[in-house]
């Protein structure tokens, strides 16, 4: 089964000004990324630039609305994702629990849609 792990981080982590804390946090992500890659289950994945660098587009009727910032203004924002190939949801949840943002924000685990022809 392919699952997407979506890593949600609280705003405070994107805005972290304390360099030592930010560095330790980055290091824990590097370790996680290393461990998940070395386990041979990753298909794809990226970290994202902070949510304020996002631009959101909506077309309503013939009107285009372009907005600075993320799709929804929520306390926790998408910080990155991985698509992994694991036997079941329980295993996917195990990997989600290892993500550093699991303790501060959260991780959404969702099955990836695959068309039957593929």
């Amino acid at each position, binding site marked *: 089964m392919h699952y997407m792990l979506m890593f949600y981080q609280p705003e405070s982590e994107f805005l972290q000004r304390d360099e030592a804390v930010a560095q330790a946090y980055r290091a824990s992500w590097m*370790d996680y*990324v*290393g*461990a998940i890659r070395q386990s041979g289950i990753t298909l794809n994945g990226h970290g994202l630039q902070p949510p304020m660098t996002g631009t959101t587009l909506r077309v309503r009727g013939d009107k285009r609305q372009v907005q600075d910032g993320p799709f929804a203004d929520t306390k926790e924002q998408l910080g990155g994702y991985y698509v992994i190939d694991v036997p079941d*949801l329980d295993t996917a*949840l195990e990997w989600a629990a290892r993500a*550093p943002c699991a303790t501060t924000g959260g991780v959404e685990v969702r099955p990836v849609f695959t068309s039957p022809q593929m």
Partner: protein
Amino acid sequence: MTQPAVQAARTAAEEAARRSYGRLVAILSARTRDIAASEDALADAFTRALERWPVDGVPAQPEAWLLSVARHRTLDAWRHSRVLDAATQTLLVLADEVGVDAPGGDAVPDERLRLLFVCAHPAIDAAARAPLMLQTVLGLDAARIAGAFLTAPATLGQRLVRAKARIRMAGIPFEYPRASDLPQRLQDVLDGIYATYGTGWDDIDGADATQRGLTAEAIDLCRILCTLMPREPEPRGLLALMLFCESRATARRGDAGDYVPLDVQDTARWNPAMRDQAEQALRAAASMHAPGAYQIEAAIQSAHCARRLGAQVPPEALVALYDGLLALRPSIGAQVSRACAIANAAGPAEGLRALEALAPADIASYQPYWAARAHLLAAGGLAAEARGAYARASGLSTSAAVRAHLAAAAARL
């Protein structure tokens, strides 16, 4: 109805639920084999109690009252569903009533042992066994169990429903296992209890109750099992094992919430009363002269604790205990621990050799392997390789405190 009467009724109902939920489910399901219907009937009985007790007063035997109401609910449900003919239904319920009211018996007999064996039956999905015990014997809600076992609540719900349906449809008997099946069946019950304990061991960062593991509940289940099977040594072995671990639980975190490994824990923060209980349970088990895996694991814990408290424990003795454990029950965890024991006895190079003998597929995402490997590489002076292993161990950890501990150890290289 008066406010104090309402409060008294609620308190009495809560106490009855805490004391006897599992007993009542066990009795209600013993003959019908329908756990789901028994739980529904019991939930109805509790609702009814909260309506009636404030008006009529709390009955002298709340459990008997609840049981009687739940039985009549079950009978009503049957009448509607017409699964059995009326005569059979009445006979079944009468048989139960006779069992309860038999002279000399407890007001509420204890059928929990049979319920435990049903929950851990080999015909039931292994992943559902421990959650099923927790729900039916202790009355824990599914959300709490799902969180502790790192399972999606919807998945767990389905597993529990399927397991209960299987017990009913497949006619899994509410019977004590045959003597020839007993060792394996008991093993399944013990494994379920220990898996439950394990949910709380790794994750002790979570402060709120829903995130915390189920260590206390696992110990409760095991105590019940020891009472119900006083002549079996392995339940006592498991109880001793969990109590040893639990006696050190608070010492596993420093004042700042930092992770503290066993060999530097402040033994003043261990719980001596709990450790005494553990030693006592282990002695009781050993006196039955039938060694088992849980007794050996408890003996290993006992040796670790004794060594930290100043007793001379030869390092080779621990290697021998791990060898014994692996002969009875091979596991990757025991292999890793044995490698550490070898390192203590014969040096880090020997320990690393034992680690390197393990199959790559078994250790790819097994955090303790990488933590042990990092530690032994560091002790052997192989700094660069140790850093890599520390990073891997940190990436596989679910605990922020453990990650910080590993990062600090890597930084010291």
